[in-house]
């Protein structure tokens, strides 16, 4: 058996120390083949649990699960108005005219609160995701995003994006059927590592849409409308 297969088995069984495990998680995030080997070992070992006698849970556990998921639904309702606004803007940007985009500018918008506590626990099958957004022209500089499911980190690489001295960009993740969530301001020529909150990290998957808006240097005034959409892209698995 190769070292990689042994490592996969050790990860599946959780034999390593927490430090070693964390280091290996980073490797997992970069290495879908290793993640597949871990999944295979997990599948091999899971039948061991068959020998345990099933234990019916207390009835309130299901009620709590329902309540947790129902609450998430209610949160989405509250945020729907904001989501709709950015969607309208997106559609107009994608289809359309400068006039429509200008009209969209007057729509009010409040960025959703961003970070919550708790690291995401990665799904071993989640691959590393990437997105590349052209800034300016299609062949011009690009904003590169890499999402590492192991750590829940989103790495934003804007080193090659030139600054014009008067604008920064704001990055948004468009969560399916939910709200667009601001990842904050991306200054030209910089790199950032954003630690995604667990509930957001769970929703990051291939195909998730990413939007870049143009903002005044240092960001829009608090509570102000977001700037115009300048680029969109989608995550894909690498």
């Amino acid at each position, binding site marked *: 058996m190769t070292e990689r297969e042994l490592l996969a088995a050790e990860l599946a069984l959780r034999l390593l120390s927490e430090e070693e495990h964390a280091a290996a998680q980073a490797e997992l995030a970069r290495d879908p083949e290793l993640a597949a080997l871990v999944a295979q070992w997990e599948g091999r070992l899971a039948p061991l649990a068959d020998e345990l006698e099933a234990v019916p849970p207390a009835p309130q*556990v299901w009620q709590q699960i329902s309540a947790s998921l129902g609450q998430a639904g209610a949160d989405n309702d509250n945020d729907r108005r904001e989501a709709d606004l950015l969607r309208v803007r997106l559609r107009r940007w994608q289809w359309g005219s400068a006039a429509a985009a200008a009209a969209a500018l007057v729509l009010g918008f409040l960025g959703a609160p961003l970070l919550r506590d708790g690291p995401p626990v990665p799904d071993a*099958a989640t691959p590393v995701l990437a997105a590349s957004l052209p800034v300016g022209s299609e062949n011009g500089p690009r904003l590169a995003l890499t999402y590492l499911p192991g750590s829940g980190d989103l790495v934003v690489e804007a080193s090659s994006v030139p600054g014009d001295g008067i604008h920064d960009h704001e990055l948004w993740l468009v969560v399916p059927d939910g709200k667009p969530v601001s990842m904050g301001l991306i200054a030209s020529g910089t790199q950032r590592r954003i630690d995604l909150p667990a509930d957001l990290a769970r929703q990051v998957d291939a195909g998730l849409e990413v939007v870049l808006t143009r903002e005044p240097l240092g960001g829009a005034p608090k509570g102000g409308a977001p700037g115009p959409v300048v680029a969109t892209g989608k995550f894909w698995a690498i």
Partner: protein
Amino acid sequence: MTAADSPDALELALARLAGGDASGLEQVYRLSAPRVLAICIRILGDRSEAEDVLHDTYVRLAANAGRFRRGHGSAIGWLVTIARNLSIDRLRSRAVRGIQLPVEAAEAVPDKSPDAEARLLGAEPGARLDGCLATLDDAQQGAIRSAFFAGYSYAQLADQRGVPLGTMKSWVRRGLAKLKACLEQ
């Protein structure tokens, strides 16, 4: 296992959930929660903490059902894996927080499956795994089972058996290699 919680019914319910039918979740829960809770209780030795983890497992499932892939084995195996990992996360954070449960809460893991022979006669999914584990020597088998059921790391296994860490690693690694070879026969 009764016909009502046959693996097929669970796979179908999970497929419905993955396809966006939220009502699939309750059925997945009904068909699998007692077995998922069993592994949480086994690892955590505490029913109330185990039910917390059970809750987290299905909330997480609701967000990730679309990511279930066949490569992961059976649906129940996938759920057991999620729950086992969450239980071990909690166990280790408990260790970091310095919380100790009474010793009797952590039930000893037997070196061999208690009813291995009975299971070998049946066609249960675990029978093949049991058969292969039985080909390992007792120390290897015992260590792998303790890692699975108690969530022990190499360091804890070495402590428990009173052997150096390096010795424990090579036991377990040899055992895993042998296990894989047997399962692939």
